[in-house]
């Protein structure tokens, strides 16, 4: 190789230098970014990093009262599962229960007390301190109390059970206001009323689906939304495959196939509002065919003679031999059970319908029998009252009171009447007339929007409380809910807010409501219960019992089957049978369709709409996500030339909405079904301005016996607007196209 000139050498060195610099820079580039290692300042005792701990508490996503257990790691809640030892959930959870974590960690939670500075409803809120907030409320109320206008203070809350209910009652009682009411759209008031009439007991029996052989459901979506879905699902699984060589049968009667209808062996779409008639028709067939051998069969046949299958068949538009067959199966099976709920129990005939269904249970002789309707003798705790539940009628009275200015202070806790009452009854407008509306809520919904003062409440995963599941599980049960993580934000558990308000108001309130915190109150009450009633089987001292109860999250007496009321005489039942045919708002000629709003397993009455997981969960029946839709029968749709996604104008005597159409093969022609839950004007980023709320066009009819809202008794007219909208759903082609996906066709195992 020839010798290198000086100039070249320098160039080579230069090149090398450039390379070296590049190399160093590369090294800098690939270097990991600095991570910090932050130690605890003072480690909590039950803390070890990387290992999960589980805390038991109670789910509050619906009123079933499932026991849940929450997985905690490094002080954060990671997962909700069913509490294995809890008799209601038995270790299982529904989708809504799982999504409880979205409630806890929801980005749209209210973080501090807020005061409305603009005019009502405008939503100009400013942060204030708790002292400020509490003094405002406390001062106002105590003044009213002194002026002797305590009864102008109203407390409206969502369904509350256990000792929180007692706390509320005590608070209002001491205040001297008799106006403590609960309002929950899903509350089965009609069923209770019917049971009062038929059996003389004001409670929900334990429907022992688990041991039933034949389940006849009149509109009750027991797997999705009715009373205690998780418990019912467990029971359903057992009914199907739990017993060797014996598979229970289920029949569902409803105009639009619900989750339970989908799982039923037989789905019967009776004409809406005639479910009660059908029940009586079946009863008639049973008695008529001499399958009921009670001493009182003559009275029954007299009472039922007007409802011969042929007549009923005509009215319900159900083939007569179907009625006869169902009647046969119902009476022949060892343990048959009939339940009613959903739309069937939400007509102007709701109570009459449920009474008719109760009659069926009586005729099947399943009362207080395994696989039948078993009555709890509310023996768990004294604290399960339903007396405070406001019917629709009572809500109307409240609205009048507000309108007429009788209401000075309205305390609203964890309920959203502005959303779950029809627009036309004017709850929203009435709120403007109230001098001081105080909303206790974790989220910003339509009702808090109208408030003058918002007190942020901690979620159920951060609060103390207890609960007695209703309906029970056949034996005494009570569950404790405890905070599973340190509370987020500057919010307080409802109970603590009440106690603090009591302190603010002064007088005898703080004296008798002396507890420092909800925790203390609950523990105190449990001590009382513990001492007052000899808890058989617990011979240890209270502290030990308390610790055990906390650990288990539930206390109960399995095996100690309740001795419910003895089977009542049929006289009252027979007397109670009235013609159960629902009346509808709007004439059939002008309003061709029956509106069938239904609770969804996803959002229930809309309280789940702000949870992203639920928004992203495909609707079980239609696989639609994000938004709402109106279901039409394919044939009807064809006749009207409507395709999926056509925006419909649905008009009822009470108002009208615009909503995209969805062709749903399992719905009765002449019925248009709309899910409840979407259509929030407020309620956080995930729910706001999404879909429509069918309750708004529900005519304010009510059941004439219970005074509950007849939300399934509205007729509507449907017409296409010509506009279209892309309905988001996961399902592609929902037919098997002859492919053997659901199993080999040949064998019938």
């Amino acid at each position: 190789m020839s010798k290198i000139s000086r100039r070249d050498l320098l160039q080579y060195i230069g090149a090398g230098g450039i390379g070296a610099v590049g190399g160093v820079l590369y090294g800098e580039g690939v270097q990991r970014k600095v991570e910090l290692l932050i130690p605890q300042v003072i480690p909590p005792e039950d803390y070890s990093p990387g290992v999960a701990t589980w805390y038991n508490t109670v789910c509050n996503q619906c009123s079933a009262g499932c026991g849940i257990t929450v997985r905690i790691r490094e002080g954060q809640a990671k997962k909700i599962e069913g509490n294995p030892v809890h008799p209601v959930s038995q270790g299982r959870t529904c989708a809504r229960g799982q999504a409880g974590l979205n409630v806890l960690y929801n980005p749209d939670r209210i973080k501090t007390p807020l005061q409305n500075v603009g005019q009502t409803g405008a939503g100009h809120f400013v942060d204030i301190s708790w002292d400020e907030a509490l003094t405002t409320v406390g001062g106002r109320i105590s003044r009213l109390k002194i002026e002797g206008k305590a009864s102008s203070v109203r407390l409206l809350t969502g369904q509350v059970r256990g000792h929180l209910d007692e706390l509320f009652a005590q608070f209002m009682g001491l205040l001297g206001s008799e106006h403590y009411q609960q309002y929950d759209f899903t509350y089965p008031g009609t069923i209770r009323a019917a049971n009062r009439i038929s059996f003389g007991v004001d409670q929900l029996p334990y429907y022992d689906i688990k041991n039933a052989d034949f389940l006849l459901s009149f509109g009750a979506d027991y797997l999705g939304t009715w009373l205690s879905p998780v418990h019912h699902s467990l029971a359903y699984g057992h009914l199907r495959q739990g017993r060797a060589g014996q598979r229970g049968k289920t029949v569902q009667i409803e105009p639009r196939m619900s989750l339970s209808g989908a799982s039923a062996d037989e789905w019967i779409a009776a004409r809406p509002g005639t479910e009660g008639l059908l029940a009586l028709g079946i009863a008639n067939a049973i008695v008529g065919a001499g399958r009921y051998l009670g001493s009182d069969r003559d009275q029954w046949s007299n009472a039922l003679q007007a409802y011969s299958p042929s007549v009923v068949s005509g009215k319900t538009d159900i083939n007569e031999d179907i009625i006869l067959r169902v009647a046969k199966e119902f009476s022949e099976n060892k343990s048959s059970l009939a339940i009613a709920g959903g739309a069937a129990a939400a007509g102007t005939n709701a109570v009459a319908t449920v009474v008719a269904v109760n009659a069926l249970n009586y005729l099947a002789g399943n009362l207080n029998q395994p696989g039948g309707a078993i009555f709890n003798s509310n023996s768990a705790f004294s604290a399960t009252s339903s007396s405070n539940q406001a019917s629709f009628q009572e809500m109307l009275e409240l609205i009048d009171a507000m309108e007429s200015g009788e209401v000075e202070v309205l305390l609203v806790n964890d309920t959203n009447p502005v959303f779950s009452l029809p627009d036309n009854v004017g709850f929203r407008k009435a709120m403007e007339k109230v001098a001081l509306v105080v909303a206790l809520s974790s989220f910003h919904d339509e009702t808090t929007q109208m408030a003058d003062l918002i007190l942020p409440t901690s979620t159920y995963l951060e609060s103390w409380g207890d609960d007695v599941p209703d309906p029970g599980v056949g034996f005494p049960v009570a569950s404790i809910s405890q905070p599973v993580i340190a509370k987020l934000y500057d919010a307080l558990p409802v109970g603590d807010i009440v106690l603090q308000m009591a302190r603010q108001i002064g007088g005898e309130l703080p004296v008798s409501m002396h507890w420092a915190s909800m925790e203390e109150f609950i523990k105190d009450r449990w001590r009382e219960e513990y001492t007052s009633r000899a808890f058989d089987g617990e011979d240890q001292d209270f502290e030990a019992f308390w610790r055990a109860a906390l650990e288990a999250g539930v206390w109960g007496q399995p095996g100690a089957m309740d001795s419910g009321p003895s089977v009542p005489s049929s006289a009252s039942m027979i007397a109670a049978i009235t013609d159960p045919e629902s009346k509808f708002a709007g004439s059939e000629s002008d309003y061709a369709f029956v509106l069938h709003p239904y609770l969804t397993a996803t959002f229930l009455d809309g309280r789940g709409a702000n949870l992203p997981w639920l928004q992203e969960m495909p609707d079980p029946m239609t696989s639609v996500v994000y938004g709402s839709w109106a279901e039409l029968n394919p044939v009807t749709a064809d006749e009207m030339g409507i395709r999926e996604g056509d925006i419909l104008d649905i008009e009822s005597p009470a108002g009208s909405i615009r909503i995209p159409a969805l062709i749903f093969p399992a719905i009765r022609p002449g019925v248009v079904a709309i899910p409840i839950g979407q259509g929030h004007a407020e309620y956080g980023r995930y729910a706001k301005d999404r879909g429509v709320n069918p309750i708004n066009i529900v005519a304010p009819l009510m059941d004439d016996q219970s005074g509950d809202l007849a939300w399934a008794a509205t007729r509507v007219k449907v017409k296409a607007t010509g506009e279209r909208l892309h309905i988001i759903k996961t399902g592609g082609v929902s037919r098997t196209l002859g492919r053997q996906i659901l199993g080999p066709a040949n064998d019938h195992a």
Partner: protein
Amino acid sequence: MFDHGQPTYAEVNKDILSTMLETGPKYWILLGSTMSLAGIFFFMPWIYQLFVGVGAAGMNHNAVWGTYLSNFIFWIGLSHSGTLLSAVLHITNSPWRKSIYRSAEAMTLFSLITAALFVMVHLGRVWFVHWSFPIPNQMGLWPNFRSPLMFDVMAITTYLTASTIFIYMGSVPDFAAVRDASTGLRRRLYAVFSFGWRGTAREWHTLGWAYTFFAVFVIPLAVSVHSIVSWDFALSAVPGFHHTIFAPYFVTGAIYSGTAGIVTVMYCLRKFLNFERYIGQVHLDSLGKLLIALSLIWSYINVLELFSTWYGGTSFELEALSFRMTGFYAPLYWEMILFCAFVPLLMLTRKIRWSWNKMLVISLLINIGMLTERFIIVATSQPRKFLPDAFGFYVPSWIEISITIGSFGIFMTLFLIFIKWVPSISLYEVKETLKPLRRDA
């Protein structure tokens, strides 16, 4: 074989080298526009996609493969006739090859590069693409040799290398010619390129021998490459992909579109570099005949596919087929049938076969047809597989469309650069075809 009388050796050099040595503003404008086409339509959207994720494209859960892959196949296909054709024709030593094979091979090279780029664009995490090469690494992890994609990586890289060598070797004497015709830096550069070619008998002999060897070597390679590409699809169970006919189908399609591509390129060379003298009727005619033959084979295979599907009679295949023929993309399907099966039949008449303009139109139509063919294969089959409830749908997003357009920019840019660096017609082979001249002429 020369339409306008036979040129002298000197003229050949002059005509062809002038295209390299003399560069007018037209060229720069053209180059600039193609480069900006590539930059704006291909690279900018791609960079955007790299930042946000492949979600920028229109693909979704049911159609995870999209336009990127169909374009990948298209470009691989386009690459086919270049090297393959030139090799075949070289062995069968048909004289009319000599003036077109250089640019044909260049076409191979550049469409392969474009195709490779599409793989990169397709990948979700292209920054880890090296994991798919069998490079020894500390993690002790190797690629999965059972994966058809792995076959692909192998096949394409081999093919790329082989055709590069092939074209380079073929142009060594011409590099020498350039060296002799030029001065200064270029001269030194081409001295390197030409490996100091001096044109001794020995060198000529070695070259000829090596060239023939490579020609033979490249043919099976070319065939294998597209067969392997087809296996990416055929090895899956997806209805519409799962056909044993796929390998020959793809190869035929590839050569088909490639040949059509050559016609287009010929046309351009002729027009813009005025090579009328070297690229003449005879080439057009023979290419035309070749195209007819290919189109017939192609149609046959399509019919065969329909038949085997119908005969197989499984719900899956039938559904896939019926969707292809009557579903949303049916218009595209029939357009493909029209352009690739019927339009070429026009070339049966000499009038059309001998007209440059008509041939240009036909060749373009064929390639449009082939482009859509690949798109249909990808877009209609895999969104509708076995579980009807999971049936989905695919429409390309604007990003995919723009990248597709941009890819042509890349191809053209490379080609434009090529014609300035390599004699786009083989000097020495053209000279071989010249009748020897009298000394005193």
